[in-house]
């Protein structure tokens, strides 16, 4: 009896894992966009985010991977589900697709895709062995408060705006019908 390690080399295992997480991400994203039932859309989003967290794991960053699950699936997707259940009833037939909206979404998403693709091509990537390998949480924290302080502050500004928006939106409600 041969050891599994004889035919399952680290390279094949890594490739198989990579294909799996990418497949999960893409299939989830397709469900999230294509399904006609809004609850299925959210579950597709969850599957896709699972794939993304798998990519982080693949890049040897379990901390970010678990944070992805904790925040994006555990908090954001659940909050979206909650909002869906409070919105319009499910037994009504879904309204037909709005052509203009679909086109706008496609152009927006395509634009971002092209932009990111060009950015990826333009960046000078350093090979893994030459790069610093210290990506512990401590290092990330130091970077946030030194080199990337502006981004860190902008994120908190974004959160503040989101909170203010939520308060403004909620203030108008609570009136007797």
């Amino acid at each position, binding site marked *: *009896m041969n*050891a*599994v*390690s004889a035919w399952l080399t680290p390279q094949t295992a890594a490739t198989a894992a990579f294909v799996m997480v990418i497949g999960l991400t893409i299939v989830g994203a397709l469900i999230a966009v294509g399904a006609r*039932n809004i*609850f*299925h859309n959210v*579950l597709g989003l*969850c599957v896709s985010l699972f794939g993304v967290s798998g990519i982080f794991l693949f890049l040897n960053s*379990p*901390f970010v991977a*678990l*944070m992805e*699950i*904790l925040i994006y*699936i*555990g*908090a954001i*997707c*659940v*909050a979206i*589900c*909650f909002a869906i*259940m*409070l919105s319009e009833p*499910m037994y009504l037939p879904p309204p037909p697709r709005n052509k203009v909206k679909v086109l706008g979404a496609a152009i927006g998403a395509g634009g971002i895709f092209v932009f990111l693709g060009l950015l990826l091509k333009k960046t000078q990537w350093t090979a893994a062995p030459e790069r610093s390998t210290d990506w512990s949480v401590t290092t990330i924290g130091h970077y946030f408060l030194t080199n990337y302080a502006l981004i860190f502050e902008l994120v908190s500004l974004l959160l503040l705006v989101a909170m203010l928006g939520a308060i403004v939106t909620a203030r108008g409600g609570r009136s007797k019908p």
Partner: protein
Amino acid sequence: MELVAQFLGSEGARMVVGLIAVIALVSVNALFLIWMERKVAAHMQLRPGPMEVGPHGAIQTVADAIKLMGKELITPAEVDKPIFWLAPIVIFLPVLLSFLVIPFSSTWIIKDMNVGILLILAFSTLSVLSILMAGWSSNNKYAVFGAIRSVAQNIAYEIPLLVTVMSIILMVGSFKLTDIVAAQSGLWFVVVQPLAFILFITCATAETNRAPFDIPEAESELVAGFHTEYTGMRFALFFLAEYTNMFIAAAVATVLFLGGWHGPFLPGVVWFLLKVYAVIFLLMWFRWTFPRTRFDQLITFAWKILIPLAFVNLLITALVLKLR
């Protein structure tokens, strides 16, 4: 054993053996806990509880489990079938995964990960998602209400839970569960952080949907909440997940506050299990002592009392650590 190790490599063999042990532990634990709950409930209400099958009804739950396995798996006509079938599986998988990092003793651990506590917290949030899937796909108003309540409750109680756990992590400086236990070889954290312990137990009770916070499945209002439409083994899987979740919550409380496997004379595993079952007894004691809270009281309690207290606790911890 040698053959298995040769076939999979030592790490793989550890995984396989660990997984088999975990599945055995999960089933035995659930059978035992259901019997224990019935006995605890009975004695608190001055009645004997199950007595017929086995000594003091010890194998009553085995009989119940066999009965459940023999029941038909009914799929109601108007349910969303794929999600209805997936929900019991999705609730059970993350629960199994959490056992990967629980340290039963300094050596009895399947994989000692650097992000151990984070893994348990991340995967425990998935149970909310499966409750939502079950409740929504059942196409039943009671099930949907149970699911909605469960989500509101879990979102509210997750924040103080995470902040409380953060104050412990701040003290140890590591997410690794074995490091957290090792830091308590002298003084248990329950002595240093009594407020954090109370907050953690309260939030853990709410997160596992136990009384007095069991409004997602409040029998008198919602039939059975999110699992109203489930029968047979699917229903049993929800129960299995609930009792295993209780075990995990108690195990995390033991690791974070009660010194894990530390204790005199007895081996570490025995101490660990003793502490876990003591915490579980505490949770059962709550259930049969406190009446169920009202929904608005529950949410107000989380947002206006628990969250500020958790943040104050975190601030004090940080201040003390800085000044020391």
